[in-house]
């Protein structure tokens, strides 16, 4: 260790005992097996989240969260601010890739049963993080105040209004009144840049802390293998993570330059909802489900039942570590794999229907 570095290290060691951290990281290992690839997706999601924070802060320098100025300020960012077009395009693309990566991370964790004891809380904070990311996507989508985002938010908050009992209250809270207005924009902005980031910081902190403390989970097949291999987290796995992040960044840059995120037309609340208004792709399967559900099922309202169904599905997802009691005993129950595959097929089918099915 060079002299100066050693001096600094000693200064910290004397005060905070950082040798323990050093030892911890030196000893930390990552299991190596045929499902190793899936370990990268948590890191990719984290990397894209960091991209979001940085580009988000840069956009914050110019963005104005009022109905009169929002669209114009984003247009200003895209046309007048140096590299503003790139920052905004990266922010939009990265948001979508981050949610996509989070979905892959969730399903890979699900199929590898990494949620099993003792990582129940890691799983639950992870499910919470995905929910918050979708919340960030929903609130961020409105901020440019263009036609598509305005009406998608109108439809989205309308759906939230169908939640039993608290629905109308929830809709009013989301909209800041009866209609999508200035009040909606400012509170979506507050949620997007303050409330949700604070919550995400807490959840992410716990999530990452537990990943570090408990290490990477091994799939059931690997944990029983007597010849299992490992690699050091530092530097071997971390350098691999960096390599993947660089490649993801290259991809992100390519998308942002060749397919810049459009601004569209400024929202006009007085026009009729344009035909074919859809929410962001990650909400589409839910949106399409609600479209497919009949208006009335027996005496119940179809939409309300659909929303209750999503609530139940979300609760099952959240509490899966406690439901899958076989995994706790390190046993495999194919039922959960089947449920997972069916869920993916369902999401893919509904999303396909929303894009390419008959438009109603």
């Amino acid at each position: 260790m060079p002299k100066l570095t050693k001096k600094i290290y000693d200064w910290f060691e004397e005060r905070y005992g950082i040798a323990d951290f050093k030892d911890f990281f030196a000893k930390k290992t990552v299991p190596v097996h045929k499902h190793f690839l899936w370990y990268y997706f948590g890191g990719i999601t984290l990397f894209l989240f960091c991209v979001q924070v940085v580009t988000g802060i840069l956009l914050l320098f110019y963005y104005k969260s009022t109905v009169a100025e929002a669209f114009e300020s984003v247009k200003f960012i895209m046309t007048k601010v140096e590299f503003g077009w790139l920052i905004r395009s990266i922010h939009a693309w990265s948001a979508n890739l981050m949610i996509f990566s989070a979905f892959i991370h969730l399903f890979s964790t699900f199929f590898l049963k990494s949620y099993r004891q003792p990582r129940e809380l890691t799983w639950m904070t992870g499910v919470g993080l995905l929910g918050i990311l979708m919340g960030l996507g929903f609130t961020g989508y409105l901020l440019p105040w263009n036609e598509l985002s305005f009406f998608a938010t109108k439809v989205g908050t309308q759906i939230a209004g169908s939640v039993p009992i608290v629905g109308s209250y929830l809709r009013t809270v989301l909209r800041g009144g009866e209609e999508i207005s200035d009040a909606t924009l400012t509170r979506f902005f507050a949620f997007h840049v303050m409330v949700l980031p604070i919550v995400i910081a807490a959840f992410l902190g716990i999530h990452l802390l537990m990943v570090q403390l408990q290490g990477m989970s091994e799939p059931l097949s690997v944990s029983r293998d007597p010849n299992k291999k490992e690699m050091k987290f530092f530097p071997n796995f971390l350098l691999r993570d960096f390599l993947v992040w660089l490649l993801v960044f290259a991809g992100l840059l390519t998308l942002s330059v060749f397919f810049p995120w459009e601004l569209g037309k400024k929202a006009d609340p007085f026009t009729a909802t344009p035909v074919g208004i859809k929410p962001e792709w990650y909400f589409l399967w839910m949106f399409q489900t609600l479209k497919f559900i009949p208006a009335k099922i027996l005496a119940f309202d179809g939409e309300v039942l659909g929303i209750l169904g999503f609530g139940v599905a979300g609760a099952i997802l959240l509490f899966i570590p406690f439901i899958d009691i076989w995994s706790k005993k390190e046993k495999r129950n194919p039922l959960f794999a089947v449920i997972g595959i069916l869920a993916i097929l369902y999401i893919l089918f509904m999303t396909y229907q929303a894009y390419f099915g008959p438009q109603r």
Partner: protein
Amino acid sequence: MENRRLMQTSLRGAIATKQSFSGLLRFARNDTLFARKDTLFNVFVLVFLHLVFFLAIFPAFAFASVPQKDFCIECHKTLSEAAKEPADKIESDVHFKRGLSCVDCHGGDPTKDDFAEAKDPAKGFIGKPKRGDIPDLCGKCHADPAYMRRFNPNIQTDQLSKYNESQHGKLNAQGDQKVAVCISCHDVHGVREVGDPQAPVFITNIPKRCASCHADKEYMKDYSIPTDQMELYEQSVHGEALLKKGDRGAPACPSCHGSHDAALPRAMAVGNVCAQCHSLTRDLFAKSPHKAAHDKLGIPECEACHGNHKIMRTTDEILGTKGDGLCVKCHTVDSKGYAVATLIKTEIETLKMDIKESEGIVTNAETLGMEVSDAKFDLDQSKNSLTKSRTYVHTFSKEKVGEIVKEGMGLADKAKGQGQKAIEEFKFRRKGFAIAIFFILFLAGALYFKIRAMERD
């Protein structure tokens, strides 16, 4: 006359009832009647009065709202085609809907089902009015403001006086039996309001109505006027707008010739006719040197270049001295006007070329995915200048046109600059992207080899 009309309405019975009802009340309030001490007699009187009261008012109430049978309509409906037609058409008639009927124009007694009684000249029956008398007959009501107010307080009542001043009216006064009278345009028995799209005088229908006489060579042979107006109008920009596009703001025959006071516009006043819509153009023309020249030479203003019934969409081709340029109609090669016309034409063509070039560059930038809304706004503004410069041609001043052209060129150049900048920016982005990707991939490659080397060790 006033009383007669009132009696003709269904209120007749109601008025009679009201009079007897008030008389009865006065009788009942007579104190002397109730001063008698004989109670039984009083009761008898009261019962009797109630009886009288009911007998008096009951029939009036019961039958007042039932309209009396109109035997004119009843009878004519049973007749053959020609005599039946008025009875069939009258139900859609605006007068009939307002409570008037056959009797109000033709006289007679519609309550009688006997032919002789109903058509008794003693009861004012006039039969079919003579064609020449029709304007006066209609005017009896339509020229009476007091009467017409009860139907519409804003209705015009000057149609008859205007008609009498019109060419039609003058010929009618001379006993011309072919000239248009009220029913020629408004129809008869099935008269509809002007705003009713089914009315023959509705704005989109009126050219056809005028043409029904004016385009009929046989009918018009006694009058020495052309019969091709409709044919020409249909080809004109105005005819296209009104008849093909249904643009109700477009002018029809009465917009220039008047309706009830229809007449040929005086040649020297034609500018005023066009100015009803093209006011700015007319103002510019009136202040131009052309105004005095036209007045002096007796050349109609707008018409001299744009024609009358066949006014075509103006193009830049009719401006100037070459090709279809109209200026050479009056200005000879060596005249000042010829030189000015050439200069104005050049100015406008230059602006057009400038806009075209800018538009190409801005479109190119947009196709490349660049945000060029500001440039497009400036481009639109420059096109506005082009339109304005075309209007200002009517000043016939190369300075004034040049000023607007300069303004338009400035905007077009600004848009061009923005478009070029956007294209440059696009190229810069591509280059920057290539460099950035090179470095990122270089770093990724280095990292890859570093990991391999590290793990080999």
